[in-house]
């Protein structure tokens, strides 16, 4: 039963991610991206990662997709220009992707890939202690993975500062007067008698 649910949502994810890159209108493209992330969150729920599913919805649908929509609507792009060169690059891309996929599926089907039998942080043992997914994630995130967690926090701070610095531009005609210019004013040059 779970497997059929998984196949169904897999089909929807693949279909909607196809539509993300092939739809000509960028707004529709962003909306299909949101739909893809919703279905990916459901697949995360099937994999029993409840916290990550909800985080995916909050971070992607709540922040990133809204940012994309905001930029798309702000830029005002004409649709006819966007699809130029589509057929020119499509066969080459298809060729590269088919090579990539054939290589990967040869690896998946071979017997030489060995997966480890036992996990490092076993989910079942943690669950038996009476902790849910979010609690167990927090337990390891704040202890074993603390330094990586701090670095990711700094990365977000850096991204915020970088975005502000990039988007901030100097104002051409400011209403306020610069103190240096004000101090250097000479009486003879500025007062004129007609």
């Amino acid at each position, binding site marked *: 039963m*779970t*497997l059929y649910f*998984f196949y169904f949502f*897999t089909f929807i994810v*693949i279909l909607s*991610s*196809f539509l*993300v*890159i092939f739809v000509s209108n*960028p707004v529709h*493209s*962003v909306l299909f991206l949101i739909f893809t*992330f919703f279905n*990916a969150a459901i*697949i995360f729920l099937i*994999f029993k*990662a409840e*916290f*990550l599913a909800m*985080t*995916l919805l909050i971070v*992607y649908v709540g*922040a*990133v997709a809204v*940012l*994309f929509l905001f*930029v798309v609507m702000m*830029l005002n*792009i004409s649709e006819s*220009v*966007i699809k*130029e060169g589509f057929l*020119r*690059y*499509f066969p080459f*891309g*298809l060729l590269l*992707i088919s090579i*990539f996929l054939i290589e*990967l*599926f040869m690896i*998946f089907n071979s017997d030489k890939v060995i*997966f480890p039998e036992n996990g490092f*942080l*076993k*989910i*079942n043992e943690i669950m038996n202690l009476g902790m849910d997914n979010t609690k*167990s*994630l927090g337990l*390891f*995130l704040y202890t074993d*993975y603390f330094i990586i967690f701090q670095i*990711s926090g700094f*990365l*977000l701070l850096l*991204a*915020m500062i970088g*975005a502000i610095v990039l*988007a901030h*531009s100097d104002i051409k005609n400011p209403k306020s007067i610069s103190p240096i210019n004000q101090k250097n004013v000479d009486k003879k040059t500025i007062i004129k008698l007609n």
Partner: protein
Amino acid sequence: MEHIHFLILSTSVFAIGFLGIFVNRKNIITILMSIELMLLSANINFVGFSYLLDDLSGQIFSLFILVVAAAEAAIGLAILTIFFKKTSSISIDTISRLKG
């Protein structure tokens, strides 16, 4: 559930993102969205293997990928807006300042 099930899903999504970078030469926004799709496929792989191998580390690293994806989207869109302000187009072909 065997490993091949979610591996097919994640490789398909990755390949679609890869194709999106090739096909959309006139639209940087769609290329950024394709990169998001590729990061999502990495996330699906991590969470799937975390479920399969009964290991919580995959979910933790998936969280870090989420952080990186959010930072990348913010910086990329900021660069895109200033680029559009200067050239009033979002085509890849106009990005040739470095003459590369």
